[in-house]
């Protein structure tokens, strides 16, 4: 069927190389303004201001971590109060084991809050950006390895509704791209 063969070698994206961060930044603004949605820039380090240039807002990973940290906080309090006060009051040197034992329980509570927050950062981040993903069409690109070295790449995927096979290529050249590569799936 021509469909499956077409898919096998179909175009995934255009990968365009830019000379430096400034050119990439201005080009990104133009791509954003042109209405593209399925695109990204690939850089060896996070470029300052690129989020705004791409029309992206702030990252809400912070909300995930807030939930994680609160869970840790409540879990630690529950663990300590339940085991030391409710289940079997552990009286050590006549020190109180009741609702007022909060100061003694503070260090463990603090540490578990941070521990749970740390785990939620790690797993929240990886899940959000959908990694690990060891296979991706971009790894077929010959320009791509530059993005982890000293290159500044822009990738516009073919599944974007505004993508047009050659017009997008011309558009990229117009906004300052140097070499443009066609990457297939």
């Amino acid at each position, binding site marked *: 069927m021509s469909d499956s063969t077409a898919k096998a070698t179909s175009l995934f994206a255009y990968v365009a190389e830019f000379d*430096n*961060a*400034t050119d990439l*930044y*201005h080009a990104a603004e133009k791509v954003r303004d042109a209405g593209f949605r399925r695109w*990204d*820039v*690939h*850089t*060896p*380090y*996070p*470029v*300052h201001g*690129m*989020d705004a240039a*791409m029309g*992206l807002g702030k*990252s809400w*990973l*912070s909300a995930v971590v807030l939930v994680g940290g609160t869970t840790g906080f409540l879990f630690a309090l529950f*663990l*300590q109060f339940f*085991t*030391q006060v409710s*289940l*079997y009051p*552990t009286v*050590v040197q006549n*020190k109180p*084991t009741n609702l007022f034992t909060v100061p003694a*329980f503070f*260090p*463990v509570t*603090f*540490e*578990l809050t*941070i*521990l749970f*927050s*740390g*785990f939620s*950062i*790690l797993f929240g*981040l*990886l899940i*959000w*950006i959908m*990694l*690990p*993903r*060891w*296979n*991706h069409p971009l790894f077929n690109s010959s320009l*791509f*390895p530059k*993005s*982890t*070295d*000293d290159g500044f790449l822009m990738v516009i995927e073919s599944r974007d509704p505004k993508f047009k096979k050659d017009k997008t290529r011309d558009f990229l050249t117009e906004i300052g791209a140097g070499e443009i590569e066609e990457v297939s799936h």
Partner: protein
Amino acid sequence: MAREPLVLNNRSMGWITDRICGIVENRQPFIWWVLFVPAVALFSCLAFTLVYLVSTGVGVWGNNQPVAWGWAIVNFVFWIGIGHAGTLISAILFLTRQKWRTSVNRASEAMTLIAVMCAGIYPGFHVGRFWMVWFLAPVPNANAIWQNFKSPLLWDVFAVSTYFTISVIFWYIGLIPDLATLRDRAKKKLPKFLYGFFALGWRGGNRHWRHYEMGYLLLAALSTPLVLSVHSVVSFDFATSVVPGWHTTIFPPYFVAGAIFGGFAMVLTLMLPIRKLYGLEDLITHKHVDNMAKIILLTGTIVGYAYIMELFISYYGANKFEADAFHLRILSGPYTWAYYCMFFCNVIAPQVFWWKWCRHNLWVVFIISNFVNFGMWFERFVIIPTTLARDFLPGQWGYYEPSWVEKLMFAGTFGMFFMLFLLFIRFLPVIAVSEVKGVLPEADPHHPDWKRLREKRRQGTA
């Protein structure tokens, strides 16, 4: 007056990648082996002493009544303290936007992880019956009894475990983009597979970078109170007791400042040879060394203030036992030599860093940082066995000497530390590649001068 550049000689991003990844990709210099082999030998001494300890019993150590805590706890606090500099560089210097941290943060975080591993050996093995060390975990033990969460020793377990876990997470997340760089450069199959596996398929897209940056910021924000709390909790092991000389509220800030102090000294001890051996002088510049020397001076002075304040309060305060404890510590007890050693190494020696010449002469910096390493070990020695040897009742007074097992074990932990650090240098990027690129002047898209910089580079370096 223009700011000194963080990367000298106008190096390009490609140069940075080549230089740092080159350390991993090329053969190690001969001196790597010269240091690695003895480190492995010392590490095997550690393994031997641990087996000997568990099989024979804790009696092979020199601690006994009244000095029930000897070198084991001293070394534990010593190693944990060293670890704190890594987290400070990663977290606190990040929050204070100190861009110079990017050249030293990776290696100092690795140093933190290895130091915490060396430290963790002691609480694990000092329990005697090592197979029961799981009793420390928050699960009912073999007698169905829960742990005493009100005990500072248990707070320690939580603090150090959390510290280690968060440091690993922070270090690993920072490594992901650099592992991707190594993956993309790898020519042979095994390195490509391993770097690729641990890089998790990182592609460097800005849609990922924005979440990554938020995660990094959150980790830095979490690690800051964490590093302050961990050594405070370690100090609580002593401060919450009633032993004179220990029961004082100055301990948490004193310990934290001391930890940062000792840790930075160890960072310098490691980074000065590395920058020379691997040609990283353009990345770890005199400015970096200068800044770290200033931090050592600052924290050393704080530690000196703490020593003097302890002495003053013992004199001025109403606690007779505390007054006697300090009198014994500095004048009439058996360990006064240790006190003066500590005072000289920690307070007097780093004062040379007031002079710019001293901060910029790398030999002076290296020697003084080793004085500090030495002195910080002595500080913990003065706090722990010295105080226990002379507590409330003269009838209880004793003297403590470490046994050969304790000495060999301590030397062994140094072997483990250097062995693991050398392995880190061998396999992982010793400087945070992506972060250093991010602080270059041309990394900023709004930087007005990047064209001129590039022209200068094309004319000059070519």
